[in-house]
């Protein structure tokens, strides 16, 4: 009798497991299970993502600062999201808290694996699955605390709205020991966008990018690498050495603000002068014939290593 009851219990448990396994297989589609990407794209607009939180059935994910995508396991379908961003052009915070079209996302995920959110002008954004617009959203305007402790909202908006273009030059004084920018490109970090421009060559002191003179937006920091001239005789140990001087130049945001606020012009030439001691002598903005000296903070780092190209 007891054995029969025990048998029945085991039978029920077994049947339950079989149902569970079959159900799992059907609902997750094991054979088409793969990761998919969630992209948050705000390249075309000047915004700062303050908060992002995406919810699946049983967990929440936020894309870390400085990244714009996250990969999910396919069984985690996005259901809800919470976004807060600051639009520099509008000088407004926008917030969206709500559901995502679960079924539409699921359908898209059966064929391809990219879901993206594209922020548009003002408070609009779109949900795009494999290049197809799935839904348009409108966020509502909210008031939030300013997120940057170092730079005031007024200044940040000023820089973001301004269409200042800067052309940069590098003047290496003739007796400088350094001759050229290194193979690794010069980086110009743009303060308000978080994006950066790169210069890959230097022609007559002027920075070029993909054979075009480089025109950058407002600059927060420049990363410059210079290569030391090598006078050593071929065959000697020193001949194989490659010495690089790395300069990290930080600009003074307050000073730039003052210059631009008072100056109606929006095109400037930036002159970087490296003197014979191979330290940064000065950086100027050239406005017609007037030279405005910029306050900068520079960090130097010298690095010597064997030039692998010469060994070959």
């Amino acid at each position: 009798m007891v054995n029969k009851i025990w048998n029945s219990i085991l039978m029920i448990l077994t049947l339950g497991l079989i149902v569970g396994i079959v159900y799992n297989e059907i609902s997750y589609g094991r054979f088409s299970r793969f990761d998919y990407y969630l992209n948050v794209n705000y390249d075309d607009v000047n915004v700062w993502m303050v908060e992002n939180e995406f919810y699946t059935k049983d967990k929440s994910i936020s894309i870390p600062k400085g990244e714009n995508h996250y990969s999910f396991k396919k069984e985690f379908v996005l259901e809800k999201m919470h976004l807060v961003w600051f639009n520099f052009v509008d000088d407004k915070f926008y917030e969206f808290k709500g559901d995502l079209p679960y079924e539409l996302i699921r359908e898209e995920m059966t064929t391809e694996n990219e879901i993206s959110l594209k922020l548009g002008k003002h408070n609009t954004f779109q949900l795009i699955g494999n290049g197809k617009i799935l839904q348009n959203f409108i966020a509502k305007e909210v008031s939030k605390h300013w997120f940057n402790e170092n730079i005031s909202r007024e200044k940040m908006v000023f820089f973001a709205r301004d269409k200042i273009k800067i052309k940069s030059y590098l003047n290496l004084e003739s007796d400088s020991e350094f001759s050229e920018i290194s193979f690794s490109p010069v980086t110009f970090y743009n303060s308000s966008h978080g994006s950066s421009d790169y210069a890959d060559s230097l022609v007559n002191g002027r920075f070029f990018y993909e054979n075009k003179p480089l025109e950058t937006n407002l600059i927060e920091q420049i990363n410059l690498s210079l290569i030391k001239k090598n006078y050593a005789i071929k065959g000697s140990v020193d001949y194989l050495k490659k010495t690089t001087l790395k300069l990290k130049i930080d600009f003074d945001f307050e000073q730039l603000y003052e210059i631009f606020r008072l100056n109606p012009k929006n095109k400037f030439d930036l002159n970087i002068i490296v003197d014979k001691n191979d330290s940064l002598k000065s950086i100027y903005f050239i406005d017609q014939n007037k030279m405005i000296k910029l306050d900068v903070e520079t960090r130097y780092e010298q690095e010597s290593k064997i030039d692998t190209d010469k060994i070959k």
Partner: protein
Amino acid sequence: MSKIKSEILEILQKTSTTVIILNVLLVLSHVFFLQQNEFLSNDFLKNYHYLIILNMILMFITVALSNNKALRIAYIIVLIFLLIFLIIFYFFVLWMTGLAKGFTHG
């Protein structure tokens, strides 16, 4: 040798439905567990011992209810092996988590 053979045959002949169902259940429980938790993932390492303990409980009840002596001995041997496996698994998890901590804290 022939004695062992005959005993095995006896066990097989006397195999009740309970034994068949129990074995199916044990196998399926592992399949289900693997379906839910990826092999050697965090959740797997965290929860696998519960599955083994559950398996052992089911086996133990079956042993307690069984009248077949040969079957009881067989199941007790399996239980002992499972217990040894559980202990090894416990130390394996300890070692793995220690390694993981070592990695994350440099």
